């Protein structure tokens, strides 16, 4: 399997405090990789390194390599705007921009490409269809993105993320703010999306990781204790800590 993303000896620091220790994680292309672990284990941090969003904050720094198609994106010469177009991110809570549904999806397109109105419209429709949202919003493209329900907002954010044709999608507990029905829709969507994108999802919900992911990485105290296929991790983990975590013995 080709590797899309690969962390090599990745370390991360908040100020002087190290929170990720020598992480090595290969992420296969067009698969869903779930990142699980107890609170504060560094799983969200790991995700935030992947599109360098951590650079918004002072005192946070990453060391080591993070290869995207073999290129270390942590190097300063890699353009961060370009990287973020390539690596979309979905957050815990839906974050629709304060604009219409259409503009929400068109925004990243306008930002990164020079497209005609027609092309823009087509790509927006395509993205909304890709996020299984088109049928629900096609009659209200002009209404505010904030007027949608929570689950729809989250799918809108997914549409926004995929509109710019990224290669990797990072999802940070994408369903933790949603009700069960919306959650299952998002989960189905994710499985659909992996046909086109490489997905990394951080989740608290072990059942979710089990249901949707192909590979699972277990973080504990900033270290990747175990990673492998989800089936392996959930039926026969190699590490005792992993076993304890997924069987609910701790955390």
């Amino acid at each position, binding site marked *: 399997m080709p590797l899309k993303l690969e962390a090599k000896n990745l370390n991360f620091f908040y100020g002087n405090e190290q929170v990720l220790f020598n992480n090595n994680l290969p992420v296969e292309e067009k698969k869903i990789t779930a990142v699980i672990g107890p609170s504060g284990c560094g799983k969200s941090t790991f995700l935030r390194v992947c599109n360098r969003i951590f650079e918004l904050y002072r005192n946070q720094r990453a060391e080591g390599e993070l290869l995207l198609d073999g290129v270390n994106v942590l190097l300063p010469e890699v353009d961060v705007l370009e990287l973020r177009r390539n690596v979309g991110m979905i957050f815990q809570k839906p974050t629709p921009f304060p604009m219409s549904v259409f503009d929400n999806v068109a925004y990243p397109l306008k930002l990164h490409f*020079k497209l005609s109105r027609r092309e823009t419209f087509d790509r927006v429709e395509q993205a909304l269809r890709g996020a299984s949202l088109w049928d629900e919003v096609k009659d209200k493209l002009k209404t505010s993105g904030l007027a949608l329900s929570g689950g729809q907002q989250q799918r809108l954010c997914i549409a926004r993320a995929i509109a710019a044709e990224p290669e990797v999608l990072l999802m940070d507990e994408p369903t933790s703010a949603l009700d069960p029905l919306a959650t299952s829709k998002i989960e189905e969507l994710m499985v659909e999306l992996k046909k086109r994108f490489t997905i990394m999802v951080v989740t608290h919900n072990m059942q979710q990781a089990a249901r949707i992911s192909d590979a699972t990485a277990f973080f504990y105290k900033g270290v990747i204790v175990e990673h492998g296929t989800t089936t392996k991790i959930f039926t026969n983990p190699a590490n005792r800590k992993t076993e304890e975590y997924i069987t609910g013995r701790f955390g």
Partner: protein
Amino acid sequence: MQKKKLFWRKLANHIFRFFSLLAVLLATTAMLVIVTHVIRAGSKALSLNFFLNPSKPYGMPDSGIANALLGSIMITLGAALLATPPAICAGICLSEFRDRPKITAALRFSANVMMGMPSVLVGLFVYTLIVVPSGHFSGLAGSVALAIIMFPVVMRTTEDMLDMVPYALREASLAIGMTRTHTTLRIVCRSARKGLITGILLALARVSGETAPLLFTALFADSWPKDYFSGPTPNMPVLITEYSTNSPFAAMHQAGWGAALVITVLVLTLNIGTRIMFREKRHAT
């Protein structure tokens, strides 16, 4: 194509960041200029006597601000005493008793309008309401005017603060068998305690510098504020106005700067003190 676009986007970004830095510098220098001037000009007037002696008409020696300071304190505290209890109850009304949403919405709107009421109009109002019927200016009228300014501020702060208390807390309190009154006073207000005190003190700091309404109510007198209920009462803001505009004399101007420094320091101390003691979410008004 994309590269070119990227270049222009980044350029615009750099220009914007430069402009915003400039704005901050400009704003802060303007502020610094004012504050340093007040300090420089005011500090010349300061002496022990300046704080201990009452103000005297021009030409008399040993003029000070003691009477105005005392008068200001009396007027402001009077305003606080008049305004705070009913204002808090009014805030409770807005936040806790929502079974008549139309009435509370109307009251909330009134409070908002009152908050933006030009203070000079408050002066006019109290003038016709108290000064004209009673026949004389008085410190009490000044207190009433300031109280009217404080009332909506405290009322709205109270409402905002109580609104921040999660609704579940009220239900939790009622669910262990407390009465409504008990819940409101002992649990909800107590939760919002810090915010309430902060709001009251900040409102107090704000009205303590108000000048316009006092021009029509408390006026000024070169005497100790013994006529709080029945006559013109000295106070700082009007003293500053009198000394700086209505007087051509440099000595009076200097005393005016001194008074300005004193009141600025007092207001800011109250402000800073409140914020430090009850460090919580800031509120713009």
